[in-house]
């Protein structure tokens, strides 16, 4: 019996000694406020839990019935738990914070609280890569509308900042997870449009106006393709960083974003644009990148450019003229660079293989010209260089017909580009052009000599002589 009495006494003392038991809710609540102001968030959470525990007892304090007190207890608890989550990144804390704020909102419909737990729900969705969870956005929007109404339907600075946060979260959710599409993105796009429209109800500073205009465009461009537009924007941004510092890491990031933009592109124009951009990035990496794998990048560029060109052929009317020209340029350039690559890596052992390889690559852009020869499928900025390179390949392979055909096309191309005729070479050609033409003429001469084309040589000699003397003037002027 004594044992039981002793045990009961010890138990009672233990209960009384428990922190908070001896204190009433009012004093605990006062402590919560001071501790929250001192940023002791762990203590705030403990104290709030004690208050909630006390209020769950059979005979709670009067304060437990006051909405004003209890909504604040849950509010302090929720915000403190969120602060702890921000430091420790413990998802349980975030979950607790959301539940506390929901409870606070249920007790008293403060729009600020609705916005905050909506924000937290969206943060959780982003963190857990759960793009399906749109509840956070809906709740945050409820909060925003409530705050708008509370400020007598005016957009305050605070609301403007909240709108920015809201829009950024909406974007982030629509691209979460990056490689799959849990939703169509229509809802998030609509939310961004609503957010931008609300912000525009007040006079915006230039910077703010730019922010909302940019996001509005991202929400509507490419058939309301927020996901694709965001990856495209990130891709272009990463491209700038890559151009400034072309290493493997910036290249991977940039290519990754652009590939996602391509994957989620809706219109054919957007697909073609992204393919063109991927080609450009790969070509840049091949030329300026550190520790680059040249062949891999060039093959990648060729593949993407070829896909872009296929789209161009199939949906010609959907592609604007400037994009068409750019696609042709990058396609031609990627082929030229790959031909040049195989042409230049030849070793004594497998030189013929490399030349054949280079020729096969070049032939991708060639079609019959109707006169027994071959011509390029389209003209692009630099197409004369590809003809010249292919004539070099023909020379090395000993293929007279191919080499002569290519060098002849190269010669005609360079004349056409410079808007010059053969008689003009003798009269009005300027030194710079003469130098440029001379390079082509010399290759022509080399090929003619190799294959014994005497009449060509007869025709070429005076041209080369004139061009040499005129280009000599350039060198001399440059030297002076």
């Amino acid at each position, binding site marked *: 019996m004594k044992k039981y009495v002793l045990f009961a006494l010890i138990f009672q003392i233990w209960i009384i000694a428990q922190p908070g038991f001896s204190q009433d809710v009012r004093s605990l609540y006062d402590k919560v406020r001071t501790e929250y102001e001192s940023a002791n968030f762990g203590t705030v959470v403990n104290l709030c839990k004690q208050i909630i525990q006390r209020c769950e007892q059979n005979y709670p304090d009067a304060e437990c019935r006051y909405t004003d007190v209890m909504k604040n207890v849950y509010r302090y608890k929720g915000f403190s738990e969120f602060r702890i989550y921000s430091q420790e990144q413990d998802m349980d804390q975030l979950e607790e914070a959301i539940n506390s704020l929901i409870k606070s909102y249920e007790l008293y419909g403060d729009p600020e609280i609705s916005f905050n737990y909506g924000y937290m729900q969206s943060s959780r969705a982003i963190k857990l890569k759960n793009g399906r969870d749109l509840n956070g956005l809906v709740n945050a929007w409820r909060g925003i509308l409530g705050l708008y109404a509370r400020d007598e*339907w005016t957009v305050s600075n605070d609301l403007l900042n909240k709108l920015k946060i809201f829009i950024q979260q909406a974007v982030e959710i629509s691209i979460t997870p990056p490689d799959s599409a849990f939703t169509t993105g229509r*809802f998030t796009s609509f939310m961004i449009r609503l957010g931008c429209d609300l912000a525009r109800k007040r006079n915006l500073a230039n910077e703010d106006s730019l922010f909302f205009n940019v996001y509005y465009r991202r929400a509507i461009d490419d058939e309301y393709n927020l996901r694709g537009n965001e990856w495209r924007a990130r891709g272009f941004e990463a491209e700038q960083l890559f151009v400034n510092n072309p290493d493997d890491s910036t290249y991977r990031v940039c290519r990754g974003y652009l590939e996602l933009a391509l994957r989620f592109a809706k219109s054919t124009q957007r697909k073609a644009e992204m393919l063109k951009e991927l080609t450009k990035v790969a070509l840049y990496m091949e030329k300026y990148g550190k520790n680059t794998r040249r062949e891999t990048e060039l093959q990648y560029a060729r593949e993407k450019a070829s896909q872009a060109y296929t789209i161009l052929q199939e949906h010609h009317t959907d592609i604007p003229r400037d994009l068409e020209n750019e696609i042709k340029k990058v396609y031609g350039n990627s082929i030229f660079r790959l031909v040049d690559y195989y042409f230049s890596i030849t070793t004594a052992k497998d030189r013929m293989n490399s030349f054949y390889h280079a020729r096969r690559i070049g032939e991708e852009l060639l079609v019959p010209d109707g006169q027994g020869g071959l011509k390029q499928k389209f003209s692009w900025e630099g197409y004369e260089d590809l003809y010249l390179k292919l004539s070099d390949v023909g020379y090395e392979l000993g293929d007279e017909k191919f080499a002569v055909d290519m060098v002849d096309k190269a010669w005609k191309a360079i004349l056409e580009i410079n808007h010059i005729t053969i008689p003009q070479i003798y009269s009005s050609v300027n030194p710079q052009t003469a130098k440029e033409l001379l390079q082509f003429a010399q290759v022509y001469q080399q090929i003619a000599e190799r294959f014994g084309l005497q009449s060509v040589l007869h025709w070429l000699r005076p041209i080369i002589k004139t061009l040499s003397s005129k280009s000599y003037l350039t060198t001399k002027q440059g030297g002076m």
Partner: protein
Amino acid sequence: MAYRITLILLFIFICWQNSLLSQSMIETKFEQQMVEYEVDVVRCYNELQKFLDKYDRNIVEMIAFENLLSIYVDRILEIYNTMERLAGSSLETYRGVAARALIFRSLTYLERSRQAPENFEKAVNDYKHALQLYKTSTTIPIMNKKLPYEVWIGRKMYSRLADLLDDKNKDFNLLNSIKDINE
């Protein structure tokens, strides 16, 4: 003395005028806000319809649209109830806005009623609520009134709620439910 009484009366008159003016300003603001919210309800409804046209309708997004539209309708009803308390039940414009918003929400609930049967109950409640708002009115029923805006579903344009309801509620389930309730 008479001068003082005149002054006092003038003061009372000015105060009364001021209070009338401020009340009228509040009413104007409320009306303006209700109309703005209604525009957002219709925008939301139209957006949902575009979305439903697509083959890739996503249930999570449908729920989100439903909740979003509901937020706006709740705001409209909140203003409507405030106005009713302030000025009695003779507010034709506000009633129209509230009733139309309820019908749109009812139609939105109906879109997902097969997957979520509780939505049908919600749709019926909103529909009933909208009709009740016009129960004692002598004007044209809300369903047959011309809408102040256009509602587009696919390539079809609607200018009356009755037509929209006929198309969206092909089996007249809502109407039958109301009949059942009344019986």
